[in-house]
C-alpha cells in the first residue's frame, strides 16, 4: 500500500457556538483524487480553509508524509506544497496569462530582481503546451472565459510545485467542454503523482474522475468509500443521513387558496430561464437546488433587487413593476438576504437601529422628528418576541451570535407586518437550537396568513418546513413536489439531475 501524503487526525473546529468540524479523520494518498462531498454547511470548505492556513483548527493533528506539521497561514501552506483552487477566482484580471501563472514567483534577473519577461513568456508557453492548452500566454486574463480562467488558476497553483491540490467546486459554472479539459489536466497531474481533493455537488463528476470519496455531514466524517465500490444512492443516503425530525416543528394551519404572488415567464438579470410560479396566502413555498441553480437570483429579482427583463409579476392579482427594493416594500414585501453580514445588517450600528431601519416611519412624531422613546419601545418589543439574546437593543449587531443576528434581520421586517416574505438561506450558519426558533417563527408567520418564499439548498430543511417545493436546476424550475409526498433524498436526486426530473 502506498504511503499517505496527507493525514488528518481528530480535527475539531468551532465558529462561535457552531461546531463546524467534529473529530474528522481524513487521509490522502499520493497520486490520488479524493472527492469530498456533503450538503452545504457540512464542513467541506472549513476543512479546506484549515489545510490552506486560512483558518486555524481548534484541536487535531495534520501529518504530511507522516511528519506532524502546523499550518499557521497561507504562506506556510504554499511552502508545504498545498495549493487551492476556489469557486471564486483569485486571478488578477488586468495581467496577462503568463504574469498570472507566475504571480509572486516570477523568474527574475540578477540585476535588482527585475522580472525576466522573456523567460516568463517561454516558461508559461512551455507550460501551456505541456498540458495541451491553446491559450496565448500574452492574453489578458480578463479576455478569457470562466473555464479558461480556472485552468490558468490550476497552472498557477502548479507553478509552485504543489504536491496537494485542493479544488473547491472547481467545475461550477464551467461548460461541458471545459470540464473535460479540467478532467484531462487532473488526470495528467495524477500520473505525475500530484494528489487532489475534489469538492463537488455533482456526483457524476465524482464517479468520473475520483478514486476515493469521503462524505461529511454536520461536520463529521460519516464515511469514506472507494468510488468503484459505491453507488449514487448510497452516497446520497450517507449525505442526508438519518436525522431526528423533531428539530423541525410542524405548522398548525394549511395554506389558503388565495394567490398572493404570481409570476408568468418571469426573467431577470443573472437568471437562465423564464420562471412561472404561484405563492398562496399562508403558504411556505420552498425553492431549492444546488449551489449555482439560481435561487438567490430569483429571490432578489422578486424583491426588485435585481433588474427584471421580461415577464409579468402580479401581487394579489395586480400587475406590478418593481424597480428597486423600495418599490417592493410598498406592496408589503420583505426580504431576508442570504448574506447576513453584508446584505442584512449594519454590523457597527446598534440592534435597535437595525430593527427600525426599514420601518422608520413608525417612530416619526410630528411628521419629521424621530422619537427615541418609540424606537426603544418598538425595538424591545420585537426583540422580546423573537427572544434575541442578550436582550439589549443598544449593543452593536456585530456582537450578537449568528442566530441572534438572523433574528434581528427577521425582526427588522416583522415590524412592518409584511404580506410576503422572501427568505434566502435563513438558517445558514446558525446552530440547531436557533434554527428551530427560526422555523417556529416562520410557521407562526405563515399561520397568520403571510406568504413565505423559502429559498434554501438544505434539502432536509426544505422537505420538513415547506408546504410545496419547486426544484431549480441551471436556472429553471425542473420539478414541483408536495412536501408530504416526497423525501429529502428524492429532492436531492432531482436537484442533482437524477431520473425523476421532467
Amino acid at each position, binding site marked *: 500500500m502506498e504511503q499517505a501524503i496527507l493525514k488528518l487526525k481528530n480535527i475539531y473546529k468551532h465558529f462561535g457556538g457552531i461546531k463546524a468540524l467534529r473529530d474528522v479523520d481524513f487521509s490522502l494518498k499520493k497520486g490520488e483524487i479524493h472527492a469530498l462531498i456533503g450538503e452545504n454547511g457540512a464542513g467541506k470548505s472549513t476543512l479546506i480553509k484549515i489545510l490552506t492556513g486560512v483558518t486555524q483548527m481548534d484541536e487535531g493533528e495534520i501529518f504530511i508524509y507522516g511528519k506532524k506539521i502546523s499550518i499557521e497561514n497561507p504562506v506556510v501552506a504554499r511552502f508545504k506544497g498545498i495549493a487551492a483552487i476556489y469557486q471564486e477566482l483569485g486571478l488578477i484580471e488586468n495581467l496577462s496569462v503568463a504574469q498570472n501563472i507566475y504571480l509572486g514567483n516570477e523568474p527574475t534577473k540578477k540585476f535588482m530582481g527585475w522580472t525576466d519577461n522573456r523567460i516568463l513568456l517561454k516558461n508559461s508557453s512551455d507550460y501551456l503546451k505541456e498540458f495541451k492548452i491553446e491559450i496565448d500566454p500574452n492574453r489578458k486574463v480578463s479576455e478569457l472565459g470562466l473555464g479558461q480562467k480556472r485552468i490558468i488558476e490550476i497552472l498557477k497553483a502548479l507553478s509552485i510545485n504543489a504536491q496537494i491540490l485542493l479544488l473547491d467546486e472547481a467545475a461550477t459554472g464551467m461548460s461541458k467542454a471545459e470540464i473535460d479539459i479540467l478532467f484531462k489536466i487532473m488526470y495528467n497531474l495524477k500520473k505525475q503523482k500530484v494528489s487532489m481533493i475534489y469538492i463537488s455537488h455533482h456526483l457524476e463528476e465524482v464517479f468520473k474522475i475520483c478514486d476515493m470519496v469521503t462524505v461529511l455531514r454536520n461536520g463529521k466524517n460519516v464515511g469514506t468509500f472507494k468510488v468503484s465500490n459505491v453507488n449514487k444512492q448510497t452516497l446520497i443516503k450517507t449525505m442526508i443521513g438519518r436525522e431526528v425530525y423533531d428539530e423541525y416543528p410542524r405548522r398548525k394551519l394549511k395554506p389558503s387558496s388565495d394567490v398572493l404572488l404570481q409570476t408568468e415567464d418571469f426573467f431577470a438579470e443573472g437568471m437562465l430561464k423564464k420562471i412561472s410560479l404561484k405563492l398562496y396566502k399562508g403558504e411556505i413555498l420552498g425553492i431549492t437546488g444546488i449551489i449555482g441553480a439560481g435561487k438567490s437570483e430569483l429571490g432578489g429579482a422578486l424583491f426588485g433587487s435585481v433588474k427584471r427583463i421580461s415577464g409579468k409579476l402580479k401581487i394579489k392579482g395586480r400587475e406590478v413593476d418593481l424597480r428597486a*427594493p423600495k418599490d417592493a416594500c410598498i406592496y408589503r414585501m420583505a426580504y431576508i438576504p442570504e448574506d447576513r453580514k453584508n446584505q*442584512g445588517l449594519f454590523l457597527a*450600528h446598534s440592534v435597535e437601529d437595525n430593527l427600525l431601519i*426599514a420601518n422608520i*416611519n413608525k417612530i416619526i412624531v410630528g411628521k419629521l*422628528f*424621530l422619537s427615541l422613546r418609540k424606537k426603544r419601545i418598538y425595538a424591545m418589543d420585537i426583540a422580546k418576541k423573537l427572544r434575541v439574546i442578550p436582550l439589549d437593543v443598544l449593543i452593536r449587531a456585530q456582537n450578537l451570535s449568528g442566530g441572534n443576528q438572523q433574528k434581528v434581520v427577521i425582526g427588522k421586517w416583522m415590524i412592518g407586518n409584511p404580506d410576503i416574505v422572501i427568505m434566502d438561506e435563513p438558517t445558514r450558519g446558525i446552530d440547531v437550537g436557533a434554527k428551530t426558533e427560526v422555523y417556529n417563527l416562520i410557521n407562526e408567520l405563515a399561520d397568520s396568513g403571510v406568504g413565505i418564499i423559502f429559498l434554501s439548498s438544505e434539502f432536509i430543511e426544505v422537505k420538513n418546513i415547506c408546504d410545496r417545493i419547486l426544484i431549480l436546476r441551471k436556472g429553471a424550475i425542473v420539478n414541483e413536489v408536495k412536501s408530504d409526498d416526497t423525501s429529502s433524498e428524492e429532492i436531492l436526486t432531482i436537484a442533482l439531475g437524477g431520473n425523476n426530473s421532467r
Partner: protein
Amino acid sequence: MGLKGSKIKKVLKGELGLVLVLIFIGILFSILSNYFLMPKNLLNITRQISTNLIVAIGMTFVILCGEIDLSVGSVAALAGVATGSFMVLTGSIYLGIIAGISIGMLIGVINGILVVYGKVQSFIVTLAMLGIARGLALFWTNGKPISGLLEMFGFFGAGYIKNIPASSIIAIFIFFVAYIFLNRTKHGTYIKSIGANREVARLSAIPINRYRIFVFTISGILCGVGGIIITSRLLSAQPVAATGLELDVIAAVILGGASLSGGVGTLMGTLIGAMIIGVINNGMNLVGISAFFQQIVKGIIILVAVLVKRGD
C-alpha cells in the same frame, strides 16, 4: 497597559478626548501669548472658524454617506463671485445672496448626479469639479476681484450682534439645524446607514440614490453660504478665495472622528475638530510662527489624530 490603560485609550478616542486636546492646546497658547485668552480674541476665533465650520457641516453629511467632496473650496469661490457680480449688476444684496447659494446648490446637484447616475467615484467627480468651478470663477472675473459691493453686505462677514460676530451666529444656527436633522430625523439615519453599508441600505428599501444626491446638494449649498461670508468679510469677491479650503474642512471632519469609509462620525466631533484647527491657526499667528511652518504643524496633527484612531 492592561485594562485601565485600554479604558483611558477608549475615552481619549471619543469626543471627550478631542475636548481634552482642545483644552491642552488652549492652555499651551495661553502660556505662550498673553493675548490669546482675551474675550476679544476668543470671539475672533469663532469668527475665523465660522466659514470652515459651515462647509465642514456639509462635508460631514457627504462623508457620513460614504462619499467625499473635494470641490468645496472652488465652489465657495465661485459662489462668492456669483454673489458679487449679481449684487453689482442688480444693486440688491438679496439677489446676490440668492445667486451665490443657487450656484452652490446647482454644482452640488451636478456632483451628485454624476456620482450616482454616471457611476463615477465621488473623489474623481469632485476633483474634476474642483478644477471646473475654480476655472469658472477665474473666467467669469477675468481673474480680477469684484469690488464696489454694498457696505451693508459686509455685515454677514464682519458685523457683530451684541459683540458676537454675525458669521458665528450664522454658523451656530446652521449647526443646530443640521444637528437636529442628522440625529432626529429619518433622513439623518438613512444617510448614516447608506454610508455604513450601501447594499444593506438598498435592501432595507432606502432610496439610496436620492440621498446620495442630497448630501452633495447640501454640501454645495453650504459652500455657497461659506463663499458669501468670505465675500462679505472682504467686501470683494475674489476668484482665488478659499483655495485649499477642502483640506482644512476634511481635516476637521476626520479629526472629529468621522471615518472616510462612511457611516461613522458626528457633527459634534466636526465642531470640535473645526475648533481645534481654528485655535491652532489663531494661536500660531499670535505666537508669530511662520505661515509656512503652520502648514507642517497642521499636517502632523492630522496624522497623529488618524494614527490614534487606527488602534481600534
